[in-house]
């Protein structure tokens, strides 16, 4: 269970990007976050694994408070949070297997990592997952030889190798063509069900969000203004999520407080 309470993120002295945000994710649901660019979707996701440092508030993953962790404790917590990126973020010059095994770096010894002598069970797990997503025959290919969809599959397998308790996906399909994009979304949904894994997906494609996820969270300028089943996302809700600008929202705040 992921429980976010009163989360605030402010860069410098500017307007907060996340404003007192609360979000609860229970069970094995696939949740999508939609909202226009600059709504804070990416920042929210990155606060969870602390790639972005939250300003205040609390994030609990299965009872473990993440916002105060440092050093080794933070790394141990990060092992349990898988992340899939828009640009795949693979190491191009390494093989697919090395990229996949880099999801285990938090677990294996430094010596095993440097010499690439991965534990047998990790190799078996890697082949199982790669077979599952259809990239096992690429194990010895360099990552930059693969197509976009294949590269994102490597990204997904790398995240799953961590044996995560939650999977974060930051625009996982935004760099892909429509067909591949649907395949990846379907893969994420099915894997989530198979591995009983909650998944949190930032996505621009609302149609895909409606088809492939169990719950949609709509963000606008640092706030959650919609949180319901995909069916409940009607025209009115869409307009609310994708309208307005930061200035208008700020004026509204002042009215409310006044």
């Amino acid at each position, binding site marked *: 269970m992921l429980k976010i309470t009163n989360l605030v993120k402010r860069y410098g002295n500017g307007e907060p990007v996340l404003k007192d945000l609360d979000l609860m994710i229970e069970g094995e649901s696939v949740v999508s976050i939609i909202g226009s660019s600059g709504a804070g979707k990416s920042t929210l996701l990155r606060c969870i694994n602390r790639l972005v440092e939250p300003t205040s508030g609390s994030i609990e993953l299965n009872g473990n408070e993440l916002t105060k962790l440092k050093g080794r404790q933070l*790394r141990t917590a990060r092992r349990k949070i898988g992340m899939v*990126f828009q*640009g795949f973020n693979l*190491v*191009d*010059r390494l093989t697919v297997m090395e990229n996949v095994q880099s999801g285990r*770096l938090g677990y294996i010894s430094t010596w095993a*990592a440097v010499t690439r002598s991965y534990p047998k069970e990790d190799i078996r797990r890697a082949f199982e997952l790669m077979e599952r997503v259809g990239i096992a025959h690429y194990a010895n290919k360099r990552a930059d030889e693969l197509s976009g969809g294949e590269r994102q599959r490597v990204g997904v397998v790398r995240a799953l190798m961590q044996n995560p308790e939650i999977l974060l996906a930051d625009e996982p399909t935004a760099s892909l063509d429509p067909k591949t994009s649907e395949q990846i979304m379907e893969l994420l949904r099915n894997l989530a069900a198979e591995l009983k894994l909650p998944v949190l997906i930032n996505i621009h494609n609302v149609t895909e969000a409606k088809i492939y996820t169990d719950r949609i969270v709509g963000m606008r300028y640092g706030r959650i203004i919609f949180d319901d089943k995909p069916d409940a996302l009607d025209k009115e809700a869409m307009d609310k999520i994708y309208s307005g600008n930061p200035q208008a929202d700020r004026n509204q705040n002042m009215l409310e407080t006044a």
Partner: protein
Amino acid sequence: MSTIAEKFGREDWARFTPKQRLQRYAVFAFSALTLGWAISSIDVIWPWVWDAPEQMADLFGRMYPPDARNLKTILSVLLETVNIATFATVLGVLLSLPVAYLAAQNTTPNRATLWLGRLILVTSRSVNTIIWALLFVAIFGPGVVAGILAIMFRSIGFIGKLLGEAIEEIDKRPVEALEATGASRFKVIVYAIVPQVIPTFWAVAILRWDINLRESTVLGLVGAGGIGIVLQGAIDTFNWPEAATVLLAIIALVVIGEFIAAFLRSRIL
């Protein structure tokens, strides 16, 4: 209704405003004056310059035909030169790795180490190989050791600087991805940074070996080993035919080195 041409048409346009043009002329005039002053201030003895073609012809006359009787010694010393360059490059490469790590903003542990790294790079680079050689000849006495150390010290700055810049220019996204998996700093470096700088590493190492080969041929002039000692000896004793042989040998070595470097580059990169 007026046409677009009537409304907006105009045909006066200049790349620079009059003020900019004036500034440009001023800068040009100032540069020309500086250059003229520089030329007039250095003490050139013009008769010697006009005399040069005659002197050159005279020197060539004394060098020809090259004297190859000492070829065996020359070749063995030439091999020593190659060894100096190669050892110094290998050592320089090894030592420049930690320096590059310190001097790159995105890997260095803190500001103090960043400045330490940069200080090492600047020190190494601002001192010429020959001056390093003079220093090490004074410390270790004349010979190969001084030569190797001199070239190594100069190489550290060169390789460290280029490698450090390569580290700073890597794609940061894989780094972020591996940090997100909970990997330690060292593992992130090994998996996300090292693979990205390996091509630069080899390119720089080969280039430096190529440069070091040429630099090691002059080390002997200050007593730091290599072919330069033989050349110095020949010139000091006015043995111009042998000096000619040495010069030809050096040219051959540099050309061969160039070929080897090009071959390695094509194989590795």
